[in-house]
């Protein structure tokens, strides 16, 4: 009897490992393949695409940086992403905190409004945003709002507010009341309590928010394509152009090098913060 039970248990374990390993392989192999392809010479692409690279052909990366000016796009992406994250946190943290922990008139309406914002898709509001910015430029007779990396960052931050406020306020709701009360009794003002006591306690959630939005901003290309009409491209927009160019010319190595250049920063950030990720993902129920 006992033996049979052991067998079933062992079978179950084997099954679990097979499932886990299969999924892991299905992820590792394609990603590794992109890395491998990025160091292949062009002629290698016409033989079996799953063959290992013959050597380390670093020229692909040099080409991507020089010919396709991925270097300056990279810089633009870093600036717009970093700036957007800062703006997003500065405006969202206080709002989420207040929405989660204070009672006031209009709270329900605001909550509903932010919740409805989750359903707005940037793909179709991007042109209206563009027309609005252009209208501002025209009214003020300046040329400021378009093709401006700071404005791009503001738009990024704004479109991420609903989701961020939702995540952060869900987390704030789980924090015990005692800390706040103690701080207020100690004579801390509202602002000080929020900044010194409550926000540091939300650190896991903040890390999650940073990661999610970093990924969203870094990989975004539809807004960037529309609002940045000049040479101020961001990395994903540059990558798209590079891909179109390399298909015609069959410069596959350079194309995959471009993919790696886009992918690497996200991988590095993820590995750095992955431990905190599970802690910060506290989701509240959606209330209408």
């Amino acid at each position, binding site marked *: 009897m006992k033996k049979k039970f052991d067998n079933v248990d062992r079978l*179950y374990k084997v099954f679990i490992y097979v499932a*886990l390993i299969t*999924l*892991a392989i299905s*992820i590792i*192999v*394609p990603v590794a*393949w*992109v890395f491998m392809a990025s160091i292949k010479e062009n002629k290698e692409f016409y033989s079996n695409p*799953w063959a290992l690279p013959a050597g380390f052909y670093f020229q692909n990366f040099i080409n991507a940086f020089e010919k396709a000016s991925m270097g300056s796009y990279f810089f633009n992406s870093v600036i717009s992403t970093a700036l957007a994250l800062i703006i997003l946190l500065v*405006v969202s943290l*206080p*709002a989420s905190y*207040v*929405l989660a922990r*204070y009672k006031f008139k209009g709270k329900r309406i605001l909550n509903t*409004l*932010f919740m409805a*914002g*989750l*359903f*707005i*898709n940037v*793909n*179709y*509001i991007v042109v*209206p*945003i563009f027309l*609005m910015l252009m209208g501002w430029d025209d009214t003020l007779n300046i040329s400021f709002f378009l093709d401006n990396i700071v404005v791009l960052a*503001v*738009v990024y*931050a*704004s*479109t991420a*507010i*609903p989701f961020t*406020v939702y995540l952060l306020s869900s987390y704030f709701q789980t924090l015990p009341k005692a800390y706040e009360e103690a701080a207020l009794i100690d004579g801390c*003002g509202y*602002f000080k309590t*929020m900044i010194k006591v409550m926000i540091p306690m939300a650190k896991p959630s903040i890390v999650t928010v940073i990661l999610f939005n970093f990924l969203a901003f870094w*990989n975004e*290309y539809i807004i960037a394509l529309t609002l940045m009409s000049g040479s101020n491209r961001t990395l*994903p927009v540059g*990558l*798209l152009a590079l*891909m179109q160019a390399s298909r015609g010319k069959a410069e596959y190595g350079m194309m995959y090098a471009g*993919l790696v250049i*886009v*992918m690497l920063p*996200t*991988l590095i950030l993820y*590995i750095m913060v992955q431990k905190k*990720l*599970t*802690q910060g*993902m*506290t989701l509240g*129920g*959606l209330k*209408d």
Partner: protein
Amino acid sequence: MNKTKEKRRFIWICLAPATILFTVFMIIPTINVFWMSTLKWGGLSANKTFVGFNNFITAFQDMNFIHALQNTILIIAVVTVITMALAIIFASILVREKIKGQNFFRIIFYIPNILSVVVISSIFGAIYDSSNNGLLNSMISLFKPETWETIQFLGNQDIVLYAVIGALVWQAIGYYMVMYMASMSSIPEHLYESASLDGAGKFRQFFSITLPMIWDNIRTTLTFFVISTINISFLLVNALTSGGPDGASQTVLGYIYKQAYNNASYGYGMAIAAIVFIFSFVLSFILNKSTERDPIEL
């Protein structure tokens, strides 16, 4: 200073920046989408004609739009069911079982979610390649005789949508798995211990403890599934098949672009955008209401 007044000031100072940015860059543009949906306009010139609800009436008679909407609904349904099931199973394995390399698996599974859609479509372009060099086709041909015809993952109109779904599930599992893990790990251990003493096996424990305890979380993710699948399926299809062959994998957002740009019908595209907005809102609302359960007493 008056305490309530100070408090009120604090509340509004905290809320103002987020509310203003949100209003200016999301609500006003959305209102504009609704306004433009009543225009006959090509998008490039100043020739605009107000046509009222004509665009909406046209949309519901436009078989291509209906087809794209059906595709999107199918994608949402299948991606949600498969991804959710797999994500919950893998999450509960990683949380409940003693597994070697637990951390390793957790880290790896999330990776597809951090990749740009451009990268994902390149990867799946190579996986689904219809020649013998395609990853899937070359693997299948190992088990099949010489005469084996390669599968046209992206060329067969009956398969292409499922090929797209495969890629979407691949990229979403890790994301939802981490979400479910977060809420599973907060389930108190003693519940499992007492259930175990009562003789409940692993499966019983899963259905009577794990699932009910993360139910609220599951309901919330339903809304995320609706929102993100509409968005990502568009980006992926756009890069992988451009909606083809002959519209077989077209999504509603893709159809907006096709009409607005390729058919010089920008106002019509915005009418479809308005429909998509309302559709996703209503669908999430229905899902949310229909999954309501009484909260569990601990």
